[in-house]
């Protein structure tokens, strides 16, 4: 009612009613004039706002060879992916600060320009264009899968490499020019979880997945690989990322005779599922993908999460790695700095973005600070970051293998490597 009360109509019903009241011509003209002025002022405001918004002309100065090297970053600092994007930013900023503190790359400092995609693919496209206007030579790409997919055509058109931190395999399957990714693909995570199940003698598995791009992709990759490991999925239930009740899925899982429940999804729903899984007295192993491999899951899940099997990038088990493990010092150096500054062990997102910065820096060191040079270097790069050792090639733009995926057990909130993973890392 209030909305209707605030209606102010120039002209209104007076003299215009269906009943046949007529204005004289003069009054009508004057009414039109007023409306025209109002409309004009409105359009003027629109134009002025746009002009104010336009912070820069179309031509941008090219970065001077001696000045700082501009690197862009698109991540989600607001919206549903805020916890992921915030840690991405913390990781990238930490890596940039470390590089600059040690003298920069080839004697030049890195200037990181961060853009917030607001967990919205449309905004990611705006951000990409802004970064191109700013003259960045490479980009640490979005953590939100839809944003990654939305910027793909622009990445190709701009010919500026983007090392994305989203987990969607399809962006690099097949390998696209200028598009790379740092998180482990859902394919290798799925393969490693299947290998773990096989090692534990599990053959009949139920799956619950959310309907996000990540949940769908993970489940479909795993289903396609299952027969190679002798695994049969005997129940498949899906839920929304905003679901809070899982009774029907868990009841079906309980009566299905499954030896384990595999969950693909990212977000708070998995915490609710874990709590209800325990409350219903289910005792079969509960397995999660790497989306749950941080305190963003273990903390709210609390005691209910105890014992859950969670895939993780190798960085997630840094403290447990033997000192002989090649990536151990890189992981712990990054993790200790992060923990000292932020008070918690870095989640995978921080490793993903920090690693992307390290890759760009190494590429600049090898081939100079140009998009083409960086792209050429990335296509043949082998580098160890907090996520493990990557080997990129022109046909492999994800670079990691199953050897970089750990299978852990949530032990009182800490991700402790399973025997399966201990045997792998030595």
């Amino acid at each position, binding site marked *: 009612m209030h909305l209707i009360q605030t*209606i102010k109509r120039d002209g209104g019903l007076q003299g215009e009613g269906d009943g046949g009241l007529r204005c004289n011509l003069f009054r009508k003209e004057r009414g039109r004039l007023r409306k025209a002025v109002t409309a004009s002022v409105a*359009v*003027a405001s629109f134009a002025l706002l746009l002009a104010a918004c336009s912070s*820069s002309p179309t031509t941008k100065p090219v970065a001077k060879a001696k000045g700082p090297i501009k690197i862009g970053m698109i991540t989600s600092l607001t919206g549903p992916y805020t916890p992921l994007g915030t840690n991405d930013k913390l990781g990238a900023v930490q890596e940039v600060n470390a590089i600059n503190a040690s003298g920069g790359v080839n004697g030049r400092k890195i200037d990181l320009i961060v853009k917030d995609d607001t967990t919205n693919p449309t905004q990611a496209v705006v951000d990409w264009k802004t970064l191109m206007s700013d003259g960045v030579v490479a980009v640490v790409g979005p953590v939100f899968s839809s944003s990654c997919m939305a910027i793909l*055509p622009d990445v190709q058109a701009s010919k500026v490499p983007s090392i994305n931190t989203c987990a969607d395999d399809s962006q690099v399957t097949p390998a696209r020019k200028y598009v790379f990714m740092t998180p482990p693909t859902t394919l290798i995570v799925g393969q490693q979880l299947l290998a773990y199940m096989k090692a534990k003698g599990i053959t009949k598995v139920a799956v619950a997945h959310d309907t996000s791009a990540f949940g769908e992709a993970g489940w479909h990759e795993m289903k396609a690989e299952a027969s190679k490991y002798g695994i049969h999925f005997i129940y498949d239930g899906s839920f929304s990322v905003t679901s809070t009740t899982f009774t029907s899925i868990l009841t079906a899982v309980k009566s299905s005779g499954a030896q384990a429940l595999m969950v693909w999804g990212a977000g708070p729903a998995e915490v609710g599922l874990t709590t209800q899984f325990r409350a219903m007295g289910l005792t079969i192993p509960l397995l999660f993908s790497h989306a749950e491999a941080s305190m963003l899951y273990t903390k709210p899940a609390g005691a209910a999460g105890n014992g859950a099997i969670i895939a993780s990038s190798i960085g997630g088990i840094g403290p447990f790695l033997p000192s002989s493990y090649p990536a151990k010092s890189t992981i712990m150096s990054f993790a200790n700095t992060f923990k000292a500054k932020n008070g918690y062990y870095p989640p995978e997102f921080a490793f993903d973005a920090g690693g992307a910065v390290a890759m760009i820096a190494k590429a600049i060191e090898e081939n100079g600070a140009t998009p083409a040079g960086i792209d050429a270097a990335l296509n043949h790069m082998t580098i160890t970051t907090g996520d493990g050792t990557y080997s990129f090639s022109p046909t492999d733009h994800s670079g990691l293998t199953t050897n970089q995926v750990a299978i852990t057990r949530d032990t009182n909130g800490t991700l402790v490597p399973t025997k399966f993973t201990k045997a792998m890392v030595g």
Partner: protein
Amino acid sequence: MSERMRSLLVLSLAVVIGLVTLALPLVLSSSDVEIYVTIGLATIVVTGLSLLMGFAGQVSLGQAAFYGVGAYTAGIMAVHHWPSLVALMAAPIAAGVIAFVIGVPLLRLKGHALVFSTLAFQLILLVVIENTSFLTGGAIGLSGIPALHVGPLAISTGKDYAYLVWIVAVAVLLITRNLTRSRPGRALRAMAITASGASAAGIAVESYKLKDFTLSAAYAGIAGGIYVFFIGYISPDAFPVTLSIEFVIMVVVGGIGTVSGAFVGAAVVTVISQVLTSLGTSPSLPPDLPTVLSLGVYALILIIILRLIPAGVVGTLSDLWKKTKPSASNPVDTTGRSVLDSTVQAKDG
């Protein structure tokens, strides 16, 4: 100032503004052209929503759903090799047809029930999109949408889309302006003030509501159709419920029931949110700042705007214009308020 002078002033201003908005895509940077297109698309949707809220008195919290219907219709047809212009034309038709079908039962509801039912429609639509992967690409989305072609002309750059959106937005605004001044427009205005009164005066209230709902959905549909060619990729994530809420905010900020308010509301809200989004991203700033700005400060600004100018930007300017030139055609009372507005409020109160 004489009437002649005023008339000349208005005409000159209109010409200047027209030229400025036409020239803007040429001088804006590529990222600002994207924002220009975003504002244009929002203007098209908001014009329809303003027509619905201000004239038919119906609030829809599901307008982004019709935006999505338009986008998916055009996107699905385009990836299945339909001519892109046909796909674009189908977008408003699909959105309008769906609105017409669901409008028959929904518009029997009133007040909050109607608001929630439109919200529910959007939530249901998102679930349907996520679960029809074979058609929509599901949650992973639909990529590889080809560029829009109008005959031999390829619409591919941001500037191309800026002009396309400009043309469609102007067309939509003109259609709406003419509609509101016609018999159906007067009927809608009467309904917004008092549906029972309008009904008693012989206006077919239900029929007008349904037509208005359908038209506003068609506007959202064409905007969605342009959006999908502009971005080249769609997923359900592009049409969250918050987008519907943002459209409503734009209507209110611009001025409910004012046609030009759609422009202003879309521009003001988009620019405010863009500025706030860019403010908190500096690497040296605290990680929580973007959230504070995008939620807290954004809300504060909107509250201040609505406290100061509850009639919206255009509504307020319109009132001020009336105050400077009181006349017999719209008499004001001693408080400076339009007698007509006082009457409206008295009836509704």
